């Protein structure tokens, strides 16, 4: 049971971080369907730190990995910013392209790196068994992961920034009514860029967190299994509000955790449900949840609509 709790919390942390990323982007008025891709690139950033600096002391390691993931995530989110904000491209196409590009680019890059190090190694994976230990602290039977703390800090920061600061007020105005924001002298393009870049921070963090809790070695040709989209479902069910998103993330985290640990839980194992069902479960649940909540959605009103200063 403790294991289930631990997995629930850690998967919820991933979903929370990524969903908060989507939340910032959408509050600024840009739909970020490329979160999946940002996760992949962010995770690559963190994994590279672990691969090239495996000997860092634990605390430094945690910080360095986090920074690596953030840096990569932010850099990658620029692709969305340029296309969606400056060139008014279709945000759906760009997001989709970013997801495909991330996996392809990560694969090509990691393979090239592996082959360069060892001509016989044509895999697209990075392993990080040792560095991973820096992130874990045993508390009794419970394995605390630094990312749980990161997620909580991320949540508090998101809440404070959105609701208590000048920046948050302006950001949300840009997603709701950019013309109104513009008329009081707010630079809508800048705010939207800020929203997208912040989603890069959160997305990158979520990415590295995801691969580190799922395995000790990641094959980058596999992407992140639709987790970016699950996070979007979490965001929608959370009605674009950080606190509600956190609760939803816990719910979704539970279903994802079941897939990992059901065989260790007596009564679930005895039910003899094929593992496929558990694998499908998060996706099915999110479909049901979306069906129930999308009708009365309170999405930012101007999201997905490119802002054009000329059109008034």
């Amino acid at each position, binding site marked *: 049971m403790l294991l289930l709790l631990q997995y629930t919390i850690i998967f919820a942390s991933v979903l929370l971080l990524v969903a908060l990323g989507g939340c910032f982007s959408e509050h600024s008025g840009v739909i970020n369907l490329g979160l999946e891709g940002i996760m992949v690139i962010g995770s690559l950033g963190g994994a590279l730190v672990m691969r090239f600096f495996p000997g860092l002391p634990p605390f430094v390691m945690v910080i360095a990995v986090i920074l690596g993931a953030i840096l990569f995530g932010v850099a990658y989110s620029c692709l969305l910013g340029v296309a969606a904000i400056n060139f008014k491209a279709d945000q759906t196409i760009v997001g989709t392209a970013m997801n495909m590009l991330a996996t392809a680019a990560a694969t090509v890059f990691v393979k090239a790196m592996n082959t360069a190090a060892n001509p016989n190694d044509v895999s697209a994976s990075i392993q990080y068994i040792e560095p991973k230990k820096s992130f874990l602290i045993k508390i009794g039977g419970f394995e605390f992961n630094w990312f749980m703390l990161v997620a909580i800090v991320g949540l508090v920061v998101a809440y404070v920034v959105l609701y*208590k*600061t*000048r*920046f948050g*007020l*302006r950001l*949300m*105005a840009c997603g*709701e*009514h950019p*013309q*109104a*924001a*513009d*008329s*009081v*002298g*707010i630079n809508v393009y800048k705010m939207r860029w800020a929203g997208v870049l912040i989603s890069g921070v959160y997305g990158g963090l979520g990415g590295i967190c995801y691969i580190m809790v799922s395995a000790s070695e990641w094959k980058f040709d596999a992407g992140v299994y639709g987790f970016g989209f699950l996070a979007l479902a979490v965001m929608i069910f959370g009605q674009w509000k950080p606190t509600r998103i956190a609760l939803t993330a816990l719910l979704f985290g539970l279903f994802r955790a079941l897939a990992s640990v059901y065989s260790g839980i007596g009564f679930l194992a005895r039910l003899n449900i094929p593992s496929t069902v558990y694998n499908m479960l998060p996706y099915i649940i999110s479909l049901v949840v979306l069906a129930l909540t999308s009708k009365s959605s*309170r999405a930012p*009103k101007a999201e997905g609509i490119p802002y054009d200063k000329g059109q*008034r």
Partner: protein
Amino acid sequence: MDQQYAIEMLNITKRFPGIIANDNITLQLKKGEIHALLGENGAGKSTLMSVLFGLYQPEEGVIKKDGVEVHIKDPNDANRLGIGMVHQHFKLVECFTVLDNIILGVEPNKAGFLQKGEARAKVMALSEKYGLHVDPDALIEDITVGMQQRTEILKMLYRDNEILIFDEPTAVLTPQEIDELMVIMKNLAAEGKSILFISHKLAEIMAVADRCTVLRRGKYIGTVETKSTTAEALSAMMVGRNVNFHVEKKPSKPGDVILDVKNMTVASKGHKKNAVNDVSFKVRRGEIVCIAGIDGNGQTELVYGLTGLEPLSGGTIELCGKDITKAPIRRRSTGGMSHIPEDRHKHGLVLDYTLEDNMVLQRYFEPEFTKMGFLRRKNIRAYAERLIEQYDVRSGQGPVTMARAMSGGNQQKAIIAREIDKNPDLLVAVQPTRGLDVGAIEYIHKQLVAQRDAGKAVLLVSLELDEVMDVPDRILVMYEGEIVGQLDPKKTTQEELGLYMAGAKRDEVIS
């Protein structure tokens, strides 16, 4: 040297591709005066104000503030110069509170963290001083349009603006709210604020403005003292000829009942209260019935219920004696109902379709235009060409012009041609003249009367008082989802109409 003028716009010229929106226009606003800017739709008022507000850069001309030349490159510059504007379409974030909207852009903060306390105190003081009575913690989406407008006024006052621009501020208000606004404007002027008041409503200008500048088709016509002129003279300046505002029509001869609505109720999307509540009325052949009322009192939902865009939650509708309460839209349309929709871009047209494809939007499935599932392009072209000719719809490339590329007036004409040519028994026309110039308005009013004279039933929904008084044979006033009065346009006055529209007066209406 003491300057007489707060703002001077001298010889402003602003061109757009294909049009000179402002041609050598001069406007001088004295300190502490209320100055009206009068002109029809498309006369160049909005462009001129956008220039003043820094949204456009003029090709020629200078702007002076207190006698000193200034360059206004964006709204921030305008703001720094103390210029504020209440836009026609409010620039308010609906899910924010009144206070958040007021401080947006000039938020009091410590290291980026909002300090709303002092802002609240200032807003309350201003609200008190000018008698605005707003609740700073209410959400914009929950308050009335009048209150939203006051929020916009507070936005300007909070920024200590000295020059206040009101763009068509009365269009959305009840006559009583308009009176209150006039008082507020006079208070503001008395406190030394200079006010620019954009309008095409002569009575309001005569009532509140000190001076009035008139534009016509992008050109400067003149500036006059309102004390020494008349509404008629202003009107002649505005349109360049003496327009017959009155619609010529013979007395109506109502025939059989075409539309019979009984106890119609439509649920509201956002609120618990019904948008349309227990409404009954009839429309007969050969009469124009007008639904009047302030925007947002259930007219839109009434039309949606009638035309099938929204389901009814109660009541029945009969069209030509047949019950169509639950009929799908297509059956209502083929059963004799035509609908000129309120929003031509949202409902009336497929903007990325050609004009000819839009012309058959209600009829493409008829055998004339479809055979064995394939479109009969030749017939569609011929039909569109006939309508274009007959209704004088102008466009760049005729039937193959994209609807998006057409002017608003011609888009509306295309819709009217399509809907009238269906030869309906009932024509539902919702704000058919919105945003059009005088010529197009006259044309459309004539078409409505012609339909009536041809024995059709016409249901007109209008927010324009002039239209309400002139066009119909019978007026039904809606207030908060109910019909509160039936008036005879020949016997009533605008004042009486206003009382009904504001809910201050109501009768039990039996149609």
